[in-house]
C-alpha cells in the first residue's frame, strides 16, 4: 500500500496556480488570456437568443428542449459518491439531448485556433466533449448548456465573423485564400458579406439549411484588427522563429519524453530551472550510435 504522507503542522500550502502558457510576447498572452477561466472574455457583439437557435439549427425558436432521460431530480439511482460531488449542469439535470457546435478557424489571423479551442473549452466549460481537427473544433454539450456557451463564444472576442465560421458539416476551407470580401471560404456558402449592413449575414444555418430570414452576425474584423487578435505565430504578426522561450519549453517536453521513454530515471538529470537538458540526451545519442549506424 502506498504510504500516506502526513502534512507537517504549520506548513503553508500554496494554492496551485496554472501557468497555462509560456512566453512574454503578445501572442502568448492572448493564448493565456483565453485559456484562463478566471479572466472574463471581452464582449464584441450581441446576438439575440432566437437568432442563435436558428443558426444552430437543432430546434426551432420557442420549441421545448427534447430530453433523452427524465430530469435527474426525478430519477432514483443507486448511490454514487461521484454524483454527489459533481454538480450536474442545467442541461444534464434536465435530461437534454447532446448537441454540437463546430467552428472553423481560418489560418489568416484567427482569434482562435483548434488546439487553443480544446484547451480553452476544457478550462472554461463543464460537461463537454471536444474533438480537434486541423481546421475545426467540435464542441458537444447538453443542448441548453451548448446554447449558453455558443452565445458566449460568438459574442466574445474569440469570434470573428469574417475568419471564423459556424458550421455543422462541410467544414473545409481554413487554409484557402479568402474571398473578395475577406471571408473564410465555405463550399456551402452559408454566409455572405452584406455591404449595406456592413455585417456578415448567415443565409443558411450550421447544417447548410436555408434560413427563413438572414441572420446578421456582426462586422468582420479588419485585417489590422484581426492581426491584433491573432493567436497563432505568423511571419507578419509575431514570427515564430524569434520565440525563444516557447521553443525552449517544447524542447524540454520533447527531451523529457524521449529520456523518459528510454529510462525514467534520466528525467532527474534534466535541470528544472534552465530547461537545458541537452547534454543528457546527447550522451544517450552517443550510446545509441553503434545501434543506429546500420547499413554496412
Amino acid at each position, binding site marked *: 500500500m502506498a504510504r500516506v504522507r502526513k502534512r507537517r503542522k504549520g506548513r503553508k500550502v500554496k494554492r496551485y496556480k496554472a501557468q497555462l502558457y509560456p512566453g512574454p510576447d503578445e501572442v502568448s498572452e492572448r493564448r493565456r488570456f483565453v485559456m484562463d477561466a478566471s479572466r472574463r472574455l471581452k464582449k464584441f457583439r450581441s446576438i439575440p437568443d432566437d437568432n442563435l437557435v436558428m443558426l444552430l439549427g437543432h430546434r426551432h425558436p420557442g420549441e421545448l428542449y427534447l430530453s433523452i432521460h427524465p430530469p435527474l431530480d426525478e430519477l432514483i439511482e443507486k448511490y454514487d459518491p461521484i454524483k454527489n460531488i459533481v454538480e450536474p449542469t442545467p442541461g444534464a439535470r434536465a435530461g437534454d439531448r447532446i448537441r454540437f457546435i463546430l467552428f472553423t478557424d481560418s489560418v489568416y489571423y484567427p482569434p482562435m485556433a483548434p488546439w487553443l479551442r480544446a484547451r480553452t473549452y476544457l478550462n472554461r466549460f463543464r460537461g463537454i466533449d471536444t474533438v480537434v481537427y*486541423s481546421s475545426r473544433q467540435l464542441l458537444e454539450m447538453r443542448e441548453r448548456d451548448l446554447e449558453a456557451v455558443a452565445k458566449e463564444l460568438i459574442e466574445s472576442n474569440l469570434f470573428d465573423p469574417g475568419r471564423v465560421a459556424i458550421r455543422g458539416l462541410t467544414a*473545409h476551407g481554413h*487554409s*484557402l485564400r479568402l474571398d473578395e470580401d475577406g471571408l473564410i471560404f465555405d463550399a456551402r456558402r452559408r454566409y455572405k458579406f452584406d455591404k449595406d449592413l456592413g455585417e456578415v449575414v448567415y443565409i443558411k444555418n450550421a447544417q447548410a439549411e436555408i434560413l427563413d430570414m438572414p441572420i446578421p452576425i456582426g462586422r468582420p474584423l479588419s485585417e489590422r484588427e484581426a492581426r491584433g487578435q491573432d493567436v497563432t*505565430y505568423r511571419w507578419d504578426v509575431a514570427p515564430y522563429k524569434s520565440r525563444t522561450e516557447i521553443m525552449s*519549453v517544447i524542447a524540454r517536453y520533447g527531451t523529457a519524453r*524521449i529520456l523518459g521513454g528510454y529510462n525514467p530515471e534520466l528525467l532527474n538529470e534534466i535541470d528544472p*530551472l*534552465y530547461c537545458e537538458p541537452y547534454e543528457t540526451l546527447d550522451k544517450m545519442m552517443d550510446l545509441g550510435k553503434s545501434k543506429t*549506424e546500420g547499413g554496412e
Partner: protein
Amino acid sequence: MAEDVNPSGDAGESNEKFFHWRSTKIPLATELSYRYDPMEMKEKFLPTEKQREIYNSLNKVFSDDPMDKVNKKVYKYGGVVGQSRTKQEFVEWGKKLARERGIPGYNREVGIPLGQRYYEPQLISGTDVIVDFDDLNLYNNPAMQQMVDDVKRTVIIGLDIPHRVLQLRVGKEITPESMNLYMETLQHTLGGGAVVQEHMAEVHPGLTQDAYAKVLTGDDELKDQFDKRWVLDVDKEFHPERAEKLKKGIGEKLYVVTRNPTLRVRIADGGAIKRGAAIASTMAFVASYRLTGEAVISDFAYAAKHAQQISMGEIMWQSRSRAENEPGGIPYGYWADICTAESKLEPKPFLPALLEDLEEGKRQLDAVLEAGAIAALALENYWLGVYMSGGISFTSASSIVFTGNILDDFVYRFAELVNTYYQGHERLPSKWTTGRSITEMANQYMMEVYEKYPALLEYHWGGAHRVTTMGIIGPALVTITTGDAMLGSMLVNYAIGLITKEGWLRTGFSGQEVQDHIGMPYSCSLRAEEGGLIELRGLNTPYKSYTATHAAASVVQCYAGMMGRGSAWCTSPLVKAAFADSHLVFNFREPRKEFARGALREFEPAGERDLVRPGRR
C-alpha cells in the same frame, strides 16, 4: 504579464520558474528583436521570391499570384465539371452506365457541390508534366498500382540450403549445367507451367508474361557460371563503387529473386505469392534434378518457404490480419531499399558530396524525395487509404510529396544553406542539440513559407498535408547530414507534435499527432509492441498503424540515413539489388516519372486479362 513572473528565484518553486525567464539568466531581447512588419517590405523581397521554384510552380498551377491572400474568383469557377477534363469524362461515363445497365452510378448531382474553389491541376515534381488531380487517384493510375504489385510479387529465396540438401542427402552433383537447368525450369513454373504431373491444365503464358526469376550473388565467379539471361547483375545496375559494397554485403551466397505474375497478386494476396514462389522453386528442383516424392522434398519446401525465404513483408497482427508480402507488413527499412533512385550515384556520404559539388548534393536529395514518393504512395495511399480504411485512397495526402516541386524547393534551399555554412564538416554529430536546432530552423522556415504563400496553403489545404511536409523535410535534413535515422525519427515526432502544433495550434485531422506524443518515448524502445530500430519498424508496429501521413516521413528518414552515411543499402543488400532490376514493370529508380506516365495513360501495366477477353483469341 507581471503576475506570471516569479521574482523570488526560489529553487523550491522550480515549476513556476519554468516559464518566463525574466528571473533567470536567459535574455528576453532575442524574443523581441524581430518586431517589423514584413508586409510593408514586400516589394523589397518580391523579386527574390519570384526567382524561386516554389513561386513559379504555384504560379503555373494556380495561374495567379501565389502571394495574394484573396481569391476574387472563388465561387465563380462554375463547378468542378467546367474546370476538369477528367470530371467531364466521369460525368459522361456516369450517364453511359445509367443508360446501359439500368442502375445509375457516378452522379455529380448528389452530395456536396464540388468546384466552388479552384480545382488546381497537379504538376509532377521533377518533371514538366501537369495532370488532372483525378489522374493521381490510385484507382485511375496503373503505374501506382503496378508499383505496389511489383513489391508484393517479389520473394527472394536462398539456394544454399537446397544445394546442400541435394549434395549431402540426395547425393546429386551441383554443376553449372544443373543450376542453369533449374533456373530455366523455374521461369517455366513461375509462370504457371507444369513440370511434375503429366496431366495438367496450365496458365496461358501471355497472361503471366511478367513472371520470371533471376539469380543474385556477390560472388563474381559464381555469377559467371549462370546464363546471363537470368542473372541480376549488380555491376550493371549500380554505380561501380555501390556495386562493390552491395556484393560485399551479399557475400558468396546464392539467392534467386522470384517475381510471381501480377495476375496472382490480383487474384489472391501476398500470402499466395510467398507460397507461389516456394512451390515454383520446389517444383523446379524436383524437375531439374529428377527427384521423386521422397521426404527430402520437404526440405526444399521448408527452405523455400521458411528457412531461406525473404519475404518483403511480415504477417500482421490479428486486427490488421494480412498475410506476408502485403504493404502494411513491410518495414520502413525495406521501403528505403525498394527505392533505387540512388543506384547510379556515387556512394559518397551526403555532406562531403554536397560540399564538394552542390549539384551532386541536390541529386542525392532528389533521390530522397523519390523514396518519399514511393512510401507515401504505398503506405499512406495504398495501405491506409485502401486496405485499412476501405476508401478510394488518400490521394491528396500522398500526392503532395511528389507534386508541385514544393518539397524540392525546400530541400534545395537547405542544400544551399548547408553548402554555405557547413564547409569543412565530414558529418554532423548525431546529437539532440544539433538535430533539434536544425529541425527548428527548417520547420520555422517552412511555416513561414506557408504563411508567405497563401496559394501554397491552399495547395496543401489540409493539416495532414502540411504535417507530411513538416515531418519529412526538417528531420530528413538532420538525418542526411548526420547519417542517423534514429535521431531523424525522434525529430519527426518533435517537428509535428510540438514545433508545428505550438506554432499554429493545429496539426492535421483528429488525433493526427497522437503517435508523435507516444512516438517520442518509444523512440528508443526496442520492445516489440513499441518499436525497435527505426529501419525495422513499420505500419506493423502498433502505435504507428493508425494515423496517416507519418509513414512517408519514417521511410524518408531511413533512406536519408543511408545517403548520409554513404551506404549502398539501408537494411538489406538483397532487397536493394532486387529492385534495381531493369526487367521490373515499374521503374523504381524514377517513381515520380512513372506516376506521371500512369497519369498520362502511357504506362503499360502487367497482369491484364486482355488475352482471354471476348474476341481476343
